[in-house]
């Protein structure tokens, strides 16, 4: 789960391809080295339901009979067109191929070159499932759910022909703990036993909670049971890095490939060209179709120009797609023009919300927060965000399509999108609201400010005085995620899970451990009851039981009104006329790079 940012390849640490940021728009800043444009975005998640539930069940039931054998079953008979050069246009000025520092989703840039223990397979019906990748299955938990065993497939090799061993995977995970290689997806760092104080393998230390009894077997020991572990090992750090080829300076541009492509050429700031990796064996891979013969990332592209090029669709641009969201201005142009057939809009993805600082004066009263929730005009917010194509109205914390989401009513969350000003006023009166001015601290960019004004106008209808305080991205991040939270009363953010589990929606935003210190509990919400429920749901290894607990957690938390769910955002992407199999699954709300192919 990360905060949402704009384009899929975000630019921040440009290490994440799809980068995400906590911004209201698409990705990229963080991905800075990646392709993510500096706009952030995150994946969206929608109904991965069926697929996920099935996958989760398979993964979670310790029963071997349910483990998915590699390769077998789902080998799809549908042949994918081979050949051609696919172009991916991105605002990022570099791609970070180092798995330790990458925040890429399993189905974007890094996945073309790097395989992990598990990967994501997106199906034509929109579902996304976790499938074995380097491993033969999605993991076998111990009886207590706190240890997970994986076996590597036979015949796997790096691009230079060296066999992939369990030690290479262990080393890849270990190096992600080095301070020199920070900035990547870090969920595992909070889960593996003995990880506190571990600083990577470069001083000769090993992480004892990862065992490699032989060349093919890996055993992970966790602090406590964690049912979503099969999703965690689909993250970049769970690939394989050969220690002999590891140079932290150069790995970011010269990774050792295990996937269908390897890096052939990098022109600083201009392009990265991938060519086929002869050592990759398609029969061992369910997630990737590897249609194009080569893939070229065109870097440092202006998003507006990218949109115009794709609309024009001439020459090589017919075989290209944009790695970042289509900017709002071009979105209107595309929707009416001949390029509309090539515009792909995701389903509901990230949750955009208004966070209420529950520690701020007066806002510690739940009735005041309910009044704020009722006074917000979600419809005006959506209009400011671009209208219907920007997303659907939100009523829950868990986003659509993720197990653990259930529609419910607590008398506040399902008020009309325009709000209920009368009830808001009477709640404020009963609570004895002081009438003080509320500071709505937001990122200083035009789209966010427009949305902030929509929120401000809604609240003022009920007599709540709101002052919009715009701050530069980094300053905003600092204000709302660090320190004592005294700098804001309200803020706007959006969030999309890094993996399709309610865990990813709820825990980072509402667990008391995520207040300040860089965490994203922007409402500074602390509730021992909610913490307990979140912990129990996290540890549940039975997916049905877990889902039931998440539904309960959603209702419990939103009952306290720490945030106002606004919309489930949608992302739009544009591609050239020769690009085929360009699909956005229900989760994440980003196209699956691994299955894109080109017409002959």
């Amino acid at each position, binding site marked *: 789960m990360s905060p949402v940012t704009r384009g899929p390849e975000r630019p921040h640490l440009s290490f994440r391809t799809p980068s995400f940021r906590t911004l209201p728009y698409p990705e990229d800043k963080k991905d800075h080295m990646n392709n993510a444009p500096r706009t952030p975005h995150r994946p969206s998640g929608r109904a991965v339901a069926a697929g996920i539930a099935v996958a989760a069940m398979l993964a979670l039931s310790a029963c071997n009979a349910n483990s998915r054998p590699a390769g077998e079953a789902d080998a799809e008979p549908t042949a994918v067109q081979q050949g051609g050069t696919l172009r991916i246009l991105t605002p990022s000025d570099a791609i970070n191929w180092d798995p330790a520092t990458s925040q890429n989703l399993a189905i974007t840039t890094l996945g073309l070159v790097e395989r992990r223990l598990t990967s994501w397979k997106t199906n034509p019906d929109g579902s996304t499932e976790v499938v074995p990748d380097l491993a033969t299955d999605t993991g076998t938990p111990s009886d207590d759910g706190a240890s997970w065993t994986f076996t590597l497939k036979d015949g796997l090799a790096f691009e230079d022909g060296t066999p992939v061993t369990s030690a290479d995977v262990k080393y890849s995970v270990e190096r992600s703990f080095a301070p020199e290689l920070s*900035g990547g997806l870090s969920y595992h760092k909070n889960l593996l036993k003995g990880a506190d104080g571990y600083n990577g393998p470069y001083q000769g230390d090993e992480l004892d909670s990862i065992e490699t009894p032989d060349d093919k077997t890996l055993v992970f020991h966790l602090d406590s049971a964690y049912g979503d572990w099969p999703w965690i090992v689909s993250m970049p750090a769970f690939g394989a890095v050969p220690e002999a080829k590891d140079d932290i300076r150069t790995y970011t541009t010269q990774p050792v490939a295990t996937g269908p492509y390897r890096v052939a050429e990098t022109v600083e700031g201009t392009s990265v060209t991938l060519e086929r990796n002869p050592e990759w064996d398609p029969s061992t891979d369910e997630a990737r179709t590897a249609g194009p013969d080569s893939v070229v990332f065109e870097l440092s592209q202006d998003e507006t120009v990218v949109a115009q090029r794709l609309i024009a669709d001439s020459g090589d641009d017919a075989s290209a797609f944009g790695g970042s969201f289509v900017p709002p201005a071009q979105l209107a142009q595309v929707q009416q023009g001949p390029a509309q057939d090539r515009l792909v809009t995701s389903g509901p993805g990230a949750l955009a919300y208004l966070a209420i600082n529950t520690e701020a004066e007066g806002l510690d009263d739940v009735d005041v927060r309910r009044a704020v929730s009722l006074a917000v005009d979600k419809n005006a917010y959506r209009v400011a965000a671009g209208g219907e194509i920007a997303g659907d109205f939100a009523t829950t914390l868990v986003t659509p399509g993720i197990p653990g989401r259930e529609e419910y009513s607590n008398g506040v969350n399902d008020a009309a999108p325009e709000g209920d000003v009368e009830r808001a006023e009477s709640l404020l009166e009963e609570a004895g609201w002081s009438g003080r001015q509320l500071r709505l601290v937001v990122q200083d960019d035009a789209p966010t400010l427009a949305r902030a004004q929509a929120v401000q106008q809604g609240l003022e209808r009920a007599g709540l005085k709101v002052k919009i305080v715009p701050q530069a991205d980094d300053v905003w991040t600092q204000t709302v995620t660090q320190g004592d939270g005294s700098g804001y009363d309200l803020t706007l953010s959006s969030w999309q899970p890094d993996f399709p589990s309610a865990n990813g929606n709820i825990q980072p935003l509402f667990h008391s451990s995520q207040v300040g210190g860089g965490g*994203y509990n922007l409402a500074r919400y602390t509730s021992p009851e909610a913490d307990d429920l979140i912990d129990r749901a996290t540890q549940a290894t039975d997916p049905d039981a877990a889902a039931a607990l998440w539904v309960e957690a959603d209702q419990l938390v939103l009952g306290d009104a720490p945030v106002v769910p606004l919309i489930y955002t949608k992302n739009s992407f544009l591609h050239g006329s020769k690009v085929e199999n360009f699909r956005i699954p229900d989760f994440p709300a980003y196209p699956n790079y691994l299955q894109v192919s080109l017409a002959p």
Partner: protein
Amino acid sequence: MTFVRFLATRLATLAFVLLTVSFLTYAIFVLLPADPAQLACGRPCTPERLETARAYMGLDRSVVEQWWEFVRGVLTGRTFGSAGATVDCPRPCLGYSFAHNTPVTELIVGRIGVTASLAIGAAMLWLVLGVGAGAVAAVRRGTVLDRGLMVAAITGVSAPSYLVGLLGILLFGFTLDMVPVSGYVPFRDSPVDWAWHLVLPWSVLALLSAAVYTRLTRSQMLEELGAPYVRTARAKGITEERVVTRHALRNAAIPVVTLFALDLGALLGGAVITERVFSMPGLGALLMEAVGRTDVPLLVGVTVFTAAVVVVANLAVDVVHGVLDPRVRRGGRAR
């Protein structure tokens, strides 16, 4: 001897300016409430890992210490990281970008070719266009041609580069499909493609900057053409063409050359907007990325480099003036 002293004074000033710029840059970025360590913390982040990241990036030390390390690095090189995973930053080390995992000097060297191609080509173009148009306007003073050129110049001075750039792309790239709309091809790969990709950005930059030169050249020329020596030259029967080109234009060129050197120096520091619009991965684009990521070492490094280029360009102008015009160095003061 006096010239040596002149040069020494200028070099000392140069060093002082660069030290001041680097310190102020450090102070500004360090005092900002943004925290670069936050971005390096990963997701999800914990307070302990935030501290580790801060220590690794040297952000736990005072501004003065950080700045002093930077200055020392320029002279002697630095080593970053912990035992076992160190990275060297050889001198002149302008810092180490943690976001790129690369020394800043290396990043600048990688991008300077793009910016230099863009800047030098555009500068040549605008110098020829601007000075030419200015001279013509001065000689044809008061005519329709003069008025027309001045209107065009005012338009050029006021037009924002992102607008002209996008309009240029739309017209020549998409509608007429005459030139590539974006991208950069290194000179050594293909000089023809290199120039072909640069034609539009050169033209846009040149069009905007030439306007200033047109106005400056025109006013200088008018001044010179009215000067007594010109009257004397004409009286001696020298052809008008020779009077204009050999006498008036040459003298009018002195302030133009000064301005040109400074403009070129500034442009070599990166044409931020033009590079972005044309997807040129130059220093300006690098700076934009650095701002987006709060990559302080990169910001400081590029800023100091840009300052150095401008200061050196300034010095070059002074030296050239000193050589051309003995009055400058005799007084021991430049201009």
